[in-house]
């Protein structure tokens, strides 16, 4: 703190010495002689000036008002103790000495006011570094900036702080009381309080300034005093004066710095966290109260400042969040509602966060909408505080608050997570956006055009057949209006199959439209170029993006099977065998020649007048499986062609086209009819070629599709053949395997075939029979009985089923006699014919009635049936159904025979069901249902049977 190397202790030392009563006279006064020996010349380096404001600073500018005098005039005891250090009489004396000179000006002004000159100082005396210095340190000036002074200044205020908190609580209480009143009034009151506080603070600041001023004055007075002392006792030399002045300057300089520091301190102090300071004993002195009040104000303002800062930060965060949300809304296209909801949530969470941070005001519920309208920051904080206080008063246990807090935490965490996710997504998008616009839209269009143009075909439906048919099937299965080709067509021929209809995807639909336009354009362009060049211009784009055909792919493995499609004479066989082998193809090619040879032999025999010449009879080998499959492939091709033609059927009004179509279609159907070989004589082979065709699974399946194209007459012919050759069917021949219980592959295969047969071939039979007359049924039954071994046939499910179908149709005819027209009405002759046929069948079946049941058949084969097996009941069900239908037609004298032969079976079922041997309720019900099915046909019921 030395200035230009002077020892600035001098003044203080002097003062100390003076205070001790030492006579400065006794000490040698250092003489500063400029220009003399030992003079360092520093005096010339001094800069004089900057004293313009001295008057203002030291009160020389005019009368000083009294308005800063808040503490009154009363002398304080504390002051006295401090005052003691300054010998007051001396002070008074020196101050009033007219010889003193200019520095006493202010003193003279303040003295007439009747205020003890030190009364104001005393207020701050005990805290002032100046007054403290003599006690703590012998060094005067360095104390200004020393930590000691700082602490001294701070510690009382810390004490106040503590007290201030208590008072803040009181204030809180006040506010609470107010909160129960009208809110607006309360707001006004709050604002008033705030205003008052602001005023008070201003006053406080003013006073502080005043006090600083006074401090400076006192400092000066001290200096003056010392100066006076020295002047009175010695004649002051100029050098000494200079020194004094220098010291004064020094002090002034220090004062300025001190002021700065004080301001800084104040700021720091206000920013300090509110750590609970040691409790200070509250003294009831008015000055203390005044202090307290001031400190309270400070503290309140600090609190408010902090709250404001927190709120500002939160506001900022909230705004950021909102902004982000808005951005997310724009980017992600979030639902506005949802986002609003989230916003509200966020705000609620934030409000709770705020409340949590404001530790003094306990958390309370804030309405969600609170945060939505903008409230100026300051009043809003107060409003929040008061409102939360009010709500706290109204209710809200700590538990509820805790849950609320937890909820808020959860929401915050959720929001954070969402935010994090969004940010990551945005970052990714930003990262990927590097590649944006790498291709222009026209580039993309160009590529799309090329790509799509390769999809354009002459027959889009056929080329996209699978997808088209599949989507149609799916649609019909879902009960939607079907038959709508998802095909883009361009003018005459050409188009693209679109595959499965999109599920209401607008984006995709618009993309489709766009593509359609593009493709139309390219197709039209291609046409034009074609006309210009006279060549197929699409070739120019062929392979532009690669090749669709895998065969031309160079890395493809070399084909091991080199098949020449022209090796076979039969084009239809060619493609079928193409993938098998060349050898096969050769065999197939040879076969027709053999047939031709056989044919020639037949012709020769006919020419020789062979016995068989009357019929078109060639006893030949049955179709091999391969032959059957080949034939079936031919049939499939025909069926597909027929189906396609059926779809393209032109309206009958368009005669010309219709006739042309009809001719084509009829030709296909005729070819089909020939291919199924129904017209081959029954005795051609065993099995009949047609039956052979029904053996493979796909043969059974294709029958349903064939049936749609054949006429009724053709179908009847087919049915007649089928019934005549029924026992040749694979499902009849292999049915014995079903009477075993072994779970073998063969059995599974037979079962599968049977199920397919019942679902396809039998359905075809049912559809034909359902329109048949009684006479036809009689004829069919007669044929069945004539050509097949009915007792054996009846022991197969397929056989049993077909007889049941015939019998059921007769029953339907019998029941609907009244509604039938004249033509349909069976003649009595027909009826008697039928009865005759039935009686014949009854006779044939009587010995095997029990054997109709698979369960019985299994027993006779020596299988030990499990006592309760739902599978067995299911197997027996067709038999029961047959017997029920059969019994309906039974004459009164036939019924006892029927019952007699089935008595055991019926009883067995009923007893096992009723005696509870069967554990499973479902099975019991099935057993009884089976029996009742039969008994009810006879007018009986299982309920009548008492076990």
């Amino acid at each position: 703190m030395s200035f230009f190397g002077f020892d600035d202790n001098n003044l203080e030392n002097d003062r100390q010495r003076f205070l001790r009563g030492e006579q400065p006279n006794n000490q040698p006064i250092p003489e500063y002689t400029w220009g003399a020996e030992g003079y360092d010349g520093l005096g010339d380096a001094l800069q004089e000036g900057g004293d313009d404001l001295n008057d203002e600073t030291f009160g020389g500018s005019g009368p000083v008002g009294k308005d800063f005098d808040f503490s009154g005039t009363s002398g304080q005891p504390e002051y006295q103790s401090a005052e003691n250090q300054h010998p007051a009489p001396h002070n008074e004396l020196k101050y009033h000495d007219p010889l003193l000179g200019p520095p006493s000006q202010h003193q003279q002004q303040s003295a007439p006011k009747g205020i003890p000159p030190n009364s104001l100082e005393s207020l701050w005396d005990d805290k002032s570094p100046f007054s403290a210095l003599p006690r703590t340190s012998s060094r005067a000036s360095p104390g200004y900036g020393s930590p000691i002074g700082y602490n001294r200044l701070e510690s009382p205020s810390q004490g106040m702080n503590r007290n201030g908190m208590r008072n803040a609580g009181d204030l809180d209480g006040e506010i609470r009381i107010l909160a129960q009143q009208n809110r607006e009034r309360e707001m006004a009151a709050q604002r008033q309080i705030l205003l008052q506080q602001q005023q008070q603070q201003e006053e406080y600041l003013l006073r502080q300034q005043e006090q600083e001023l006074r401090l400076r004055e006192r400092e000066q007075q001290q200096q003056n005093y010392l100066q006076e002392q020295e002047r009175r006792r010695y004649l002051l030399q100029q050098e000494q004066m200079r020194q004094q002045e220098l010291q004064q300057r020094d002090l002034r300089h220090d004062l300025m710095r001190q002021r700065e520091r004080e301001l800084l301190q104040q700021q720091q102090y206000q920013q300090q966290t509110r750590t609970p300071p040691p409790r200070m004993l509250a003294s009831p002195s008015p000055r203390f109260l005044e202090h307290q009040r001031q400190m309270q104000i400070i503290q309140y303002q600090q609190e408010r400042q902090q709250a404001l800062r927190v709120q500002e930060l939160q506001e900022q965060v909230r705004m950021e969040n909102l902004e982000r949300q808005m951005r997310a809304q724009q980017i992600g296209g979030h639902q506005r509602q949802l986002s609003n909801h989230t916003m509200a949530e966020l705000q609620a969470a934030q409000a709770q966060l705020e409340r949590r941070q404001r530790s003094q005001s306990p958390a309370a519920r804030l309405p969600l909408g609170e945060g939505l309208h903008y409230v100026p920051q300051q009043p809003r904080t107060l409003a929040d505080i008061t409102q939360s206080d009010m709500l706290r008063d109204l209710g809200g246990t700590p538990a509820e608050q805790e849950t609320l807090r937890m909820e808020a935490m959860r929401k915050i965490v959720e929001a954070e997570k969402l935010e994090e996710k969004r940010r990551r997504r945005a970052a990714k998008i930003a990262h990927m956006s590097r590649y944006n616009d790498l291709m222009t839209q026209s580039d993309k269009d160009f590529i799309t055009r090329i790509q799509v143009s390769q999809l354009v075909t002459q027959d889009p439906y056929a080329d996209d057949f699978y997808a088209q048919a599949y989507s149609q099937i799916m649609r019909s299965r879902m009960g939607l209006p079907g038959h709508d080709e998802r095909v883009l067509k361009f003018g005459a021929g050409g188009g693209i199959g679109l595959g499965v209809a999109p599920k209401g995807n607008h984006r995709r639909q618009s993309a489709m439209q766009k593509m359609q336009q593009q493709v139309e354009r390219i197709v039209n362009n291609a046409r034009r170029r074609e006309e210009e060049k006279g060549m197929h211009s699409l070739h120019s784009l062929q392979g532009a993006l690669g090749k669709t055909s895998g065969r031309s792919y160079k890395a493809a493995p070399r084909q091991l099977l080199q098949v020449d499609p022209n090796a076979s004479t039969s084009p239809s066989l060619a493609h079928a065998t193409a993938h098998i082998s060349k050898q096969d193809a050769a065999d197939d090619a040879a076969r027709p020649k053999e047939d031709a040879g056989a044919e020639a032999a037949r012709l020769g025999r006919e020419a020789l007048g062979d016995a068989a010449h009357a019929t078109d009879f060639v006893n030949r080998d049955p179709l091999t499986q391969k032959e059957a499959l080949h034939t079936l492939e031919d049939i499939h091709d025909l069926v597909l062609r027929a189906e396609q033609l059926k779809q393209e059927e032109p309206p009958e009004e368009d005669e010309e086209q219709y006739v042309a179509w009809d001719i084509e279609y009829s030709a296909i159907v005729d070819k089909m009819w020939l291919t199924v070989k129904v017209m081959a004589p029954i005795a051609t082979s065993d099995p009949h070629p047609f039956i052979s065709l029904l053996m493979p699974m796909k043969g059974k399946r294709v029958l349903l599709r064939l049936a749609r194209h054949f006429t009724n007459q053709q179908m009847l012919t087919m049915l007649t053949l089928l019934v005549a050759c029924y026992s040749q069917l694979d499902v009849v021949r292999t049915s014995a395997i079903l009477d075993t219980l072994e779970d073998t592959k063969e059995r599974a295969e037979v079962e599968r075939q049977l199920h397919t047969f019942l679902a396809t071939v039998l359905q075809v039979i049912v559809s034909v029979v359902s329109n048949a007359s009684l006479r036809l049924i009689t004829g069919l039954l007669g044929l069945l009985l004539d050509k097949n071994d009915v007792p054996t046939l009846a022991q197969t499910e397929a056989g049993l089923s077909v007889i049941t179908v015939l019998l059921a149709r007769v029953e339907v005819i019998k029941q609907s006699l009244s509604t039938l027209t004249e033509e349909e009405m069976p003649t009595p002759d027909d009826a008697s014919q039928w009865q005759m046929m039935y009686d014949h069948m009854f006779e044939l079946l009587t010995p095997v009635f029990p054997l109709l049941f698979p369960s019985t058949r299994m027993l006779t084969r020596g299988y030990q049936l499990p006592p309760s097996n739902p599978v067995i009941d299911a197997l027996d069900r067709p038999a029961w159904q047959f017997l029920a239908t059969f019994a309906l037609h039974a004459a009164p004298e036939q019924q006892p025979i029927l019952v007699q032969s089935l008595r055991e079976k019926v009883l067995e079922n009923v007893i096992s069901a009723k005696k509870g041997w069967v554990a499973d309720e479902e099975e019991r019900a099935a057993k009884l249902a089976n029996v009742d099915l039969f008994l009810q046909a006879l007018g009986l019921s299982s309920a009548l049977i008492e076990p």
Partner: protein
Amino acid sequence: MLIFSVFKTLTDQQVTVELKNDLSITGVLKSVDQFLNIRLDNIQVLDAARHPHMMAVKNCFIRGSVVRYVQLPAEHVDTQLLEDATRREAANPSKR
């Protein structure tokens, strides 16, 4: 075009694509084009432990030429219709 047509009906279905590098990827078929390039979503690699580099991959575009097999969901393929479609294609030699 047949297989393309078939794949068109399988969009949004779960398929397993076996690649020629023995990688087997199961995922939801998003799209195919005429080169049988395949776009899969939500993918899962068979034997993921052997292919750690695929762990983070969630969707992919597979060039058609690197596909060895595609395992189709049986319930979404109409075998008979597929047979018919094959016959149609076979009956029309120009398309081969």
